[in-house]
């Protein structure tokens, strides 16, 4: 009988964790970045806040660091809610599309798919933020010269990105437990409580501490950006505190992903 398929060496199941994760990330990115909702929501929220940016008058400062830091603060105020909202329903998407059995029948476990989703779909959801930020830097460069660019990129990495990465990690994991609807509300509640409801309201909150995700500490310590809740606590953040403020959300995000992978792997036969 003639062979129907050209014979190749059979694939080995155990190999290629990294390649599979990269593949999953690549395709999750592709599928997420194409969604109109991702761009509408994320850029819509950035535009909403930046329509009347805070603090008033900061755009006339001559200090490039302060300028980009305060813009970054305005970016990070609202857009994480949008990033989380558009990611929350990716979590159980395979079950909804009827792909669970097919994917479970492959020799690839939950790990590459979960990390691929976190990296790929997460990067796709952050892409509009990055594009908007690049657009802003372009505008500021035209106004102030190319000196804005390096400090602008650093501000993105230090002030905006850690909080977004934290939200991404939570948004591809917590909805497994809570479902996307309750998660979105919970994310909103956390974002306000954890980053905006400062000590002036008399309730315990991480807002204004190095454990908030809104990037206030790096902004204050390295870029002379506006301080709000930290200022209310009488804090002048140091470089070490800024590093802690970046590391904490990243580590929590990592922990959440690892725990979720462990739990899902235990439950899955694959």
């Amino acid at each position, binding site marked *: *009988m003639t062979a129907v398929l*050209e014979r190749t060496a059979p694939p080995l199941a155990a190999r290629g964790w990294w390649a599979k994760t990269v593949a999953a990330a690549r395709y999750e990115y592709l599928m997420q970045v194409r969604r109109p909702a991702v761009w509408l929501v994320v850029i819509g929220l950035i535009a909403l806040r930046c329509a009347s940016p805070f603090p008033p008058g900061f755009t006339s400062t001559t200090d490039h660091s302060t300028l980009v830091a305060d813009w970054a603060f305005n970016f990070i105020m609202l857009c994480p809610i949008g990033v989380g909202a558009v990611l929350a329903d990716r979590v159980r998407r395979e079950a909804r599309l*009827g792909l669970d*059995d097919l994917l479970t*029948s*492959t*020799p690839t476990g939950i790990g590459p798919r979960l990390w691929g989703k976190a990296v790929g779909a997460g990067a796709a959801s952050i892409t509009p933020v990055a594009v908007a930020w690049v657009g802003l830097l372009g505008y500021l460069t035209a106004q102030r010269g190319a000196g804005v660019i390096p400090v602008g990129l650093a501000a993105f990495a230090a002030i905006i990105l850690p909080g977004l990465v934290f939200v991404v990690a939570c948004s591809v994991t917590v909805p497994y437990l809570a479902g996307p609807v309750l998660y979105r509300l919970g994310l909103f509640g956390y974002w306000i409580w954890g980053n905006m409801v400062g000590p002036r309201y008399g309730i315990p909150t991480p807002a204004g501490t190095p454990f908030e995700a809104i990037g206030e500490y790096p902004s204050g310590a390295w870029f002379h950006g506006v301080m709000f809740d930290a200022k209310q606590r009488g804090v002048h953040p140091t470089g070490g505190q800024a590093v802690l403020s970046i590391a904490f959300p990243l580590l929590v995000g990592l922990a959440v992903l690892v725990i979720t992978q462990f739990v899902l792997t235990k439950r899955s*036969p694959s």
Partner: protein
Amino acid sequence: MTAPNVTITDLTVTFRRGEVRALDGISLRLPVGMVGLLGPNGAGKTTFMRVLTGVLLPTSGSVAVDGTELTSRSQRREVKATTGYLPQELGLYPDLTAYQFLDYMALLKGITDRRARRARVKEVLELVSLGDVANRKVKGYSGGMKRRVGIAQAILNDPRLLIVDEPTVGLDPEERLRFRSLLARLAGDRTVLLSTHIVDDIVQTCPNVVVIERGHVAFQGAIGDLATRAEGMVWHLTQPATAVPPDLPTVNVTPSMTGTTYRVLSSGTPAPDAERVSATVEDGYIALMHDTTPERAQHGPDLRAV
């Protein structure tokens, strides 16, 4: 490549804390080539296939592929690397093109070398006649085209064991023929387990058949032996259209101008004007469904290699 030795021993799957016994002590060995898996809706065919593909863990019993039991995760992954599966409920990512979807599935199946993967994806796309539309998003595909994407992904890794669950559902007659012919060609030196409740699909392609009913193996053997079960028991009985249908296992009902012709099973002559006809596989299957016990099935003839 040789087909795998697939042995199922006393396989039991229960749900809802034992309330539902989807599979109840199934034991059999799959031969090389096309094997049909027949049974009514809810018999346990899909559950059986999900266990074979490692998607579902059995409650008790074992499945061994070339001696490797599917007990540990790593063993299941080793077996999955050489298994292809087309599930009954086929889900696809609607926003990906067929090419992208197959590329992704190929990677998940362990084909990490880019050149080899590209070549394989193109090859299977041509095989299922989707080469021309490979760069169109799957959400724009017809049902038949989506099924073809499904079979394409199942054969990406050149599987030794190919499991297809109701593959021709929703296909037009031409596509069904094409599917059958493709599966038959693929069965050369593989084991292809074809699950369906459409008897004709089995008759056309499978020399061996397993019948599952209510979680038990009701029959296992050559397709001809299934037909033999009804030999001498098949009758054509024509009645006026308004008459009450005969109270006998009915294989087929054909209305006509002169009345309604019933193809029925009966050990004795059901009516003076009934015409005895020779039995088909479908007759044997219906006879089995109406007159079988688990004890009889386990002592049935073994599946023989063809």
